[in-house]
């Protein structure tokens, strides 16, 4: 009954991935280099662990396509931030391949890396990481000035970014004079100033109050609608992941347990660990009509007169459908019927047991 998630299939058909990771390992421990030498480059997880090594990232492979948002979800210590730091090369990867637009990231020398970061990458940090000695305007202009852009031009660009994140009027404030939400707006503006293709966000909203967090998520979705960046987003908040992601990768102890579209994860958790998260999720708030609809039965003559859009969240249409005894047609953007919703399927979503 699960409909295939649209985004991934849509994008996978196109050209090469923006980020391509293959067999990434990040292993901590003093003995790591000598152990790898002994094993001729091979990594034997069990024997390494016995030697006291800790696996930050354990054999991660995935791809992120242009304009796609991959959310890496995991609890603290699961290796999600380490994974992000491997891909931004803030830490050295122990083993594996990372290709950015087809170029080998790990083979780059420091000059190439700096060029890449100056032009292609932007990053937002959990603790905002604003430079305390610079004003809002200067913080945002910093990556531009580092590139060698003239002061005048960089300030103009930074001012435009300030408008984008709705901070006009606070150009000359210092970070310490701003609230957490405002500081993160500055962080976002700074990371976008160089117009990067790839946008890394490391738990950007975790340090904020729940209400502000919701507001910032909306703001973030608005920006992404405008800019359509390729995004790697790290969070420990499963609800946040469901809200934002095109695809979610769930990590535990350095291993990616499951990587899939949000609806698929909710409907078909791959492991018990993943199921622990999905059990608590109110499915009617996550699933869309297209996720639970059934095939149109040509024999059924009596279709309901109301129609529901395929990408509508179940919660928003549940009442209508439950009040209707006849099957309700589900239509796509063009108005073509792609399936039907029955009362039973809605009832199953709302009240059904979701034992895995």
């Amino acid at each position: 009954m699960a409909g295939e998630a649209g985004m991934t299939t849509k994008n996978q058909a196109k050209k090469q991935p923006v980020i391509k990771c293959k067999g990434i390992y990040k292993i901590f421990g003093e003995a790591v280099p000598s152990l790898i030498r002994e094993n001729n480059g091979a990594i034997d997880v069990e024997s390494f662990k016995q030697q006291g090594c800790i696996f930050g990232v354990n054999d991660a492979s995935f791809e992120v396509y242009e304009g796609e948002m991959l959310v890496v979800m995991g609890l603290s210590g699961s290796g999600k931030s380490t994974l992000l730091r491997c891909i931004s090369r803030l830490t050295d990867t122990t083993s594996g391949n990372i290709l950015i637009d087809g170029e080998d990231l790990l083979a780059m020398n420091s000059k190439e890396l700096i060029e890449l970061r100056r032009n292609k990458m932007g990053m937002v940090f959990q603790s905002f990481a604003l430079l305390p000695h610079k004003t809002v305007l200067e913080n945002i202009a910093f990556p531009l000035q580092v590139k060698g852009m003239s002061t005048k031009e960089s300030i103009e660009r930074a001012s435009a970014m300030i408008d984008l994140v709705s901070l006009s009027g606070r150009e000359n404030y210092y970070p310490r004079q701003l609230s957490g939400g405002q500081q993160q707006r500055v962080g976002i503006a700074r990371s976008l100033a160089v117009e990067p293709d790839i946008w890394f966000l490391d738990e950007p909203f975790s340090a904020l109050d729940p209400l502000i967090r919701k507001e910032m998520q909306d703001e973030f979705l608005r920006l992404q609608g405008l800019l359509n960046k390729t995004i790697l987003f790290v969070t420990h908040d499963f609800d946040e992941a469901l809200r934002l992601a095109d695809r979610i990768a769930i990590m535990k102890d350095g291993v990616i347990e499951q990587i899939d579209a949000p609806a698929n994860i909710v409907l078909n958790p791959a492991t018990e660990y993943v199921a622990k998260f999905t059990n608590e999720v109110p499915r009617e708030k996550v699933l869309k009509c297209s996720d639970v609809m059934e095939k149109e039965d040509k024999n059924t003559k009596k279709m309901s007169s109301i129609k529901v859009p395929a990408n509508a969240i179940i919660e928003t249409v549940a009442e209508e459908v439950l009040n209707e005894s006849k099957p309700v047609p589900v239509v796509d953007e063009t108005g073509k019927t792609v399936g039907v919703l029955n009362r039973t399927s809605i009832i199953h979503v709302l009240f059904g047991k979701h034992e895995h």
Partner: protein
Amino acid sequence: MLNSFKQSKLQQFALLLVVFITLCWLVPKPDDYKYLVSAATSNTGSDNWLWRLPDLIAWLPLWLADGINYVMFDWITVDVYNEDLEENESISVVKEITRSLSWFVLFFIQTIREFLVGGLKTIVTFTSWDFINDNPWAKLPGLPWTVVTGAAILLGFNLGGRFLAILVGASLTYISLFGQWEPAMKTLSLVLVAASISVVFGLLLGIAAYRSKLVEAALSPVLGIAQTMPQFSYLVPMFVLFGLGDHAGALATIVFATPPMVRLTLLGLKSVPSEVVEAGLMSGCTRRQLMFGVMLPAARQNILVGVNQVIMQCLAMVVIASLIGATGIGDDLLKALNGLKLGKAFELGVCIVLMAITLDKLSLAWANKPIDYFADLSFSQRHRNKFILLAILAAGVLLALIGRYVFGDGINYFFIIDTNKGLTTESYLDAGIDWMVTSWFQPLEAFKAWVFVDVLEPVRSAFRGMPAIATFTLVMGVGYIIGGVRSALVVGAYLLFIALTAWWDRALTTAYFVAIALVIAGSLGALLGILCARSNRASKVALIMCDTLQTFPSFIYLIPAIMLFQVSNIAVLIAITPYAMIPALRYTIEGLRNVSPALQDAGSMSGVSRMQRLISIELPLAFPHIVLGINQTVMFALAMVIIGAMIGSTEDLGELILGSLSDAQGIGKGLILGLNVAFMGLIIDHLLNTWARERKEALGLA
């Protein structure tokens, strides 16, 4: 039984004490033992190694002195033809290098100095003496004191507002009116040059240490020793390397003042949040952009505290540096003290204290001032300070010119008041001191005699009567109980070095002074701290007092002590006590006040009384921090005991260090003696720090 012994450190300490006392009793003082005051060595008695170790490295000072002399004067020499003498001279390259360094430093000091008080050497440097003879007008006139004071007030106002402006203005006016302008400005020029060089040097070393673990590991013991070595022991090496004069004083000051800058730079860089560094990296910073655009500015607060400390250390050195030719107010103070002109010394002391407070407050205000980037200022607003400065200059010069007519051939009070020609209260002060001495002579003498005979002398002979084996057992035993085998070996190595030099007895005497000072200053400080911590206001006042007292150069504390107790060992102890009390007081208050409010509330809800709260909640939690204060108290006392040799015949290491200043081979002696003092400090520092760290970890405070 054995298990409980392993658990209880108290029982272990008790056993150690028993062993120690038994050893003292088993190895009695040899009959022919005599503490030799006059000779450099005093290892007499017997060749009983349990009593005293043989001075196996007694040759080290001489060897060191010969080595340095060789490198300085005979190592790489070049024959140069001297036109005046018409013969070949051999010139040592090393000496030429150090001398040109001296010249370089001296040039900066003189230039600043001549801008402040006038002179012609700067112009000579760029031209020649002949030029000066032909053009008698060509000299820097010096700024009228009104201009310097006005500019300083303006600076104070901009950095810290009205209060700071008044403080700065009052201090400088006092210094000028009391006729100490010229020496004060001489000192200022030295301090400014020494402080700038220290800051740059410290910053570079700090960055190097941050970037390389190797450099950090290499620097850390050097810094530790440089900070615990008595300031005196830098003097002879500086004198040998760089000659006598302001530059040597400045260089000795730099050696002493750089370590805190290195430490605070490193600390600042290390405490930059890793995400800020990552943000810099992700912005595409190069290594240099990251250091200068991100890390150093983000570490600004710590670094500026370092600058403040450097300035304070420089001022603390001005009196001591005058022993190797630094001129200025410190030199005058030293002369006044040597001539027992106490009234004069007091006035000069006040001037130094005022300078210290002024510079401290100005640099702190600078450190805490946020930079204002608001750009929409009008032209006149942006350049307001420059206009005011020009106006001050014009007005000051005009006033000085008017002064020339008003005062005629007398002293032009509007220009620069000649040294010692200003106001003075010297005669009143001297009369007051005389009155005090004559009217209090009997009781004071009786007090002195009682203290010396009944308190000091028994303790001192007990320290000197301690056999080496007992000392080693005690110190290494404490090390073992606190930090295991490693600590025992570390403190044992320090102790062994001292024991093998010729000055073990002297070191015991220094230890005795420190111990007495520790008991008095430590208990007074802790007690006062406990009392002050009871009330918010008292804590605040006490902490401000500590801040202020700490800006006083250590030398200043000698003046009131010597006024009351003349030149004596009691005067030394009296001088140490307030100085060494400061950290004990400060740390006690900080420790007690920082006990977490949640625990306080938990205590209140358990219904503790005030005394119970103090004894069972506050003190145990604050104790590790208080111990850190006690550690500082020991360091301060040690530094002060050495300086105390100037006002009392202490018969300890300090006296010998002071003596080495006028000794031909003094460079080796001074250095090794200095190392002895440094190692004593490092033993205590290691023990107390290790203990406090483990205790804090055990309490979950670290």
